[in-house]
Each structure stands twice: as structure tokens, then as C-alpha cells.
């Protein structure tokens, strides 16, 4: 096994990407993602990584270049956040529809306006329906492991993967992290061989018109591919566990066995929420936590299994879906529950916008409010928590 070394998470991510032997990196610097691509640029410049680094003029170009490079069969990487992701937007849908195995790290940051460089999930939620596989890391080790996983999955499923790490709270912290031995990485991620690619010797057409008589079939095929990627994603985690002993699942449960109330969360706040669970458990409250690691394709069965027999669920969203019936995760959870006979009460909180702290005490409060939902009908379908009236 590799050595555990204290590293900034962004640097560790860059090193893991380099270990995956990417051919093309195309990126435009934006806070809080910058350290990742800066370090990759250094590795290329120092001759430590044999890759093409394309310092493009915008994120629109960054994604375009990744699409072009990936279409020729190159292994690609990019990273962005907030406005940068929005500038890529139209190309995100092309990357997935073209079934290109691009890997992107999003150092999640709030969308303007007001201008914010701090963390929430408002950027990635805009690409919720884009057809990308989307995962969320809780800590540095998980972020690195999900990089290896992303390449393995992307290239088997022929779909792009967006790995989300919370900006600053994860991207800029120093954690003890173990990078895999190169030998293991090579075993886990074999060289990319794409069956269909742009090759003058064997010309094909990408991006042909989808007339009304074929567009529906193209979208059905793409949707089935994303659904089918679930199996590939889970199997890749099982393979990873065999190699490293580290176990990952689409949905992670914490003290859910006998829980009557649960919170649902994605990303790095899960650690804080777990502390709140421990605190309440000491007081005899049967609370638990569900962490969604795989956001797209949404792991419906795992989710329904994970909630067990809870009586109330509090969904903690990190983004506003303006004018909707809840936050993006809240809407998803309510919709998922309708697929089953389980009918726990669901309350939906939007918290931690633009890097506002959500402390252990806050999570205790959220648990208490979720408890209230068992006996009292919630007044709102969602609530922006902690707002100053």
C-alpha cells in the first residue's frame, strides 16, 4: 500500500489524476479549483506527467477541448466551479450525449449573484439533468479514491463523471491521504481503448442531426446507458475494495439500524452531522444519517433500503431551487419515496449557503425540527434554515 502523507486535498487530487495517466488536461483557473489544475500544470511542466496541458481562454473552451480530445480517444481531465461550470453548460450535455469518458472535478462554489467564492452545491445542481455521472466526496481520502473510481467508471460506462468536492472546506484543507501505488492504479485503470472515436483511417460522424424520428430513440439510449452505469459504478467500488480495503457504496448509512429520525446530506458536512448523531445518541435519541455519495444515476433502491423504518426524514440541501417545492435533494427524496409504500414525514432544509457554517449545534437543531415533523404538520415544504429575519 501507498504511504499516508499529509497533503492539501487539491494537490492530492492532482497527483491522483496524474497517476491515472491522463493525455489531455484542459482547464481555466477559477477559485476554489485552481490548485488542482495549477499542480497538474506544474507536473506537466516538470516533465513528471506526459500530457498535453491546454491553458484555454474560458471554461466553454475547456469543456470543448475535452470533448474534442476525448472524441479522439484521449484520456481527459478538467476542473471548475460556479460560474466556470455555468460557462461550460451547453457543452456538458454534448459530452454526455456523445458518451465521452471525461472526468471533471467540481470544487463546489456558490453561483453569483451576489458574488461568492464560498461553498455550497448551487453550481452542480444546475447540471443535475445533464446526463453526467455525479458523485460527492466527504473527505480528502474519498476525493482521491473517487478520482481513480471516476476513470474506471467513465471508461467502462462511456459516460462523463463529475466528482464534487466542497470548495475550501475540502479542496483547501490538509488531510492525511494515501495515494495508491502506481502499480495498483495501472491495474485498476487499464489503458483507454475506445471502440468509436475520431480516426481518419476509420471515419465516423459525431453530432449528426437528430430529426424527430430519431431524437427520442437517441435520448432513450442515453438514459438507459446512464441507468446501466449503476452496476458499473458499484462493481468498480467492489474492485476498489479488493485492491485497497476501502469500501464505498452509493448510499452510506450512519447509525441507521434502529433510527426513527434521519437527516440526509451530501458532501463534506456529513462529518459534522455524524458528530450531531453521536451527541444525540448519547442522550438516547434514535437518530441516524444518510449520506448520498452517488447522486446521478440516483440509487433509488439503495436509498429506499437505507431509510429503513424511519418516521421522519430531514433533507439538508445546499442549494435553492427557486420557486420549487423543495431543494434539489428534497425534491428527489420525496419523489423517490413515492416509488415505495414507505411514507415517513419529510422536511427539507436549505442550509450552508455560500460557506455559511453549519455546526454540530445546527445539526442537533435540524434533528429536533425533524422530530417535530412526526407530530406536527410542517408549515412549509422547505425552509431556508438559519436565515436572519
Amino acid at each position, binding site marked *: 500500500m501507498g504511504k499516508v502523507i499529509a497533503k492539501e486535498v487539491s494537490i492530492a487530487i492532482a497527483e491522483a489524476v496524474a497517476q491515472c495517466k491522463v493525455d489531455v488536461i484542459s482547464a481555466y483557473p477559477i477559485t476554489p479549483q485552481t490548485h488542482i489544475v495549477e499542480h497538474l500544470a506544474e507536473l506537466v511542466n516538470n516533465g513528471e506527467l506526459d500530457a498535453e496541458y491546454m491553458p484555454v481562454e474560458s471554461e466553454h473552451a475547456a469543456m470543448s477541448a475535452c470533448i474534442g480530445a476525448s472524441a479522439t480517444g484521449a484520456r481527459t481531465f478538467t476542473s471548475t466551479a460556479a460560474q466556470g461550470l455555468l460557462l461550460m453548460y451547453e457543452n456538458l450535455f454534448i459530452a454526455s450525449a456523445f*458518451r465521452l469518458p471525461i472526468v471533471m472535478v467540481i470544487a463546489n462554489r456558490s453561483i453569483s449573484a451576489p458574488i461568492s467564492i464560498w461553498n455550497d452545491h448551487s453550481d452542480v445542481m444546475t447540471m443535475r439533468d445533464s446526463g453526467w455521472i455525479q458523485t460527492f466526496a466527504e473527505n480528502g481520502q474519498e476525493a482521491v479514491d473517487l478520482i481513480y473510481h471516476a476513470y474506471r467508471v467513465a471508461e467502462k460506462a462511456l459516460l462523463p463523471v463529475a466528482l464534487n468536492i466542497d470548495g475550501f472546506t475540502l479542496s483547501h484543507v490538509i488531510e492525511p491521504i494515501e495515494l495508491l501505488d502506481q502499480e495498483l492504479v495501472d491495474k485498476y485503470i487499464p489503458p483507454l481503448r475506445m471502440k468509436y472515436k475520431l480516426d481518419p483511417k476509420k471515419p465516423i460522424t459525431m453530432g449528426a442531426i437528430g430529426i424527430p424520428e430519431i431524437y427520442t430513440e437517441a435520448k432513450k*439510449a442515453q438514459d438507459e446507458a446512464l441507468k446501466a452505469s449503476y452496476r458499473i459504478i458499484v462493481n468498480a467500488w467492489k474492485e476498489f475494495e479488493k485492491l485497497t480495503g476501502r469500501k464505498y457504496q452509493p448510499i452510506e448509512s450512519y447509525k441507521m439500524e434502529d433510527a426513527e429520525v434521519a437527516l440526509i446530506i451530501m458532501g463534506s458536512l456529513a462529518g459534522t452531522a455524524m458528530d450531531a448523531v453521536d451527541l444525540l445518541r448519547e442522550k438516547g435519541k434514535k437518530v441516524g444519517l444518510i449520506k448520498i455519495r452517488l447522486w446521478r444515476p440516483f440509487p433509488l433502491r439503495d436509498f429506499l433500503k437505507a431509510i429503513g423504518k424511519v418516521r421522519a426524514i430531514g433533507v439538508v440541501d445546499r442549494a435553492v431551487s427557486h420557486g420549487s417545492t423543495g431543494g434539489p435533494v428534497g425534491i428527489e427524496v420525496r419523489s423517490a419515496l413515492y416509488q415505495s409504500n414507505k411514507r415517513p414525514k419529510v422536511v427539507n432544509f436549505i442550509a450552508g449557503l455560500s460557506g455559511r457554517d453549519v455546526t454540530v449545534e445546527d445539526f442537533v437543531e435540524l434533528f429536533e425540527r425533524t422530530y417535530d415533523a412526526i407530530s406536527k404538520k410542517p408549515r412549509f415544504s422547505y425552509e431556508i434554515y438559519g436565515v436572519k429575519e
Partner: protein
Amino acid sequence: MPKDQGLVSWKKLAPGMFILEPGNSAKFKTGDWRTYRPVLDKEKCIKCGICYALCPDLCYKKDEEGYYIVNLYYCKGCGICAKHCPKSAITMVLEED
């Protein structure tokens, strides 16, 4: 209207709806949204080839006698050929279904 209007099963599409046969756009019939069709009067035609040169869909092809003949499989009926024919040898005629 049949419920299943698809040209081909989604299961048979190549990933990404890629087209694996090069140059198969030639098979795509663009002539079925035409309203007017160009009709050539060979008496007036001087075989100058302006219709051939200006046709945006490359529909015109020279025949053995040297006349340029439109391929109605592709002709969208734009009328550029008729407009620019120096001898007004091409007339746009309404398509009757």
C-alpha cells in the same frame, strides 16, 4: 398516427448516436419538404451550368447531352437556379400532392 414513430430501435443505435458509415448523409432525403419544383425548358437552356454552380444542395448533375438535370430526391425547391438562370429556362412549378 402510430404510437411508435421511431425510425430505428434505440437498442440498435451506436453509442452517442454516432454514424458509423462515412458519407451516408447522401441517403438523407431532403426533397420531401419542397413546395415548388424546378422544371427545365431544354429549348431555352444554353448548358451554362449556373444552376449547377449555385445549387446549395448540389442537386444538379450533367447528363450525356450536356444538360444539367436536377435530382428531386435532394432538391428543396429553393428556386435559386430559376432566379439566376440567364435564359429563364427554369420555371418553379407548384408541387401537387
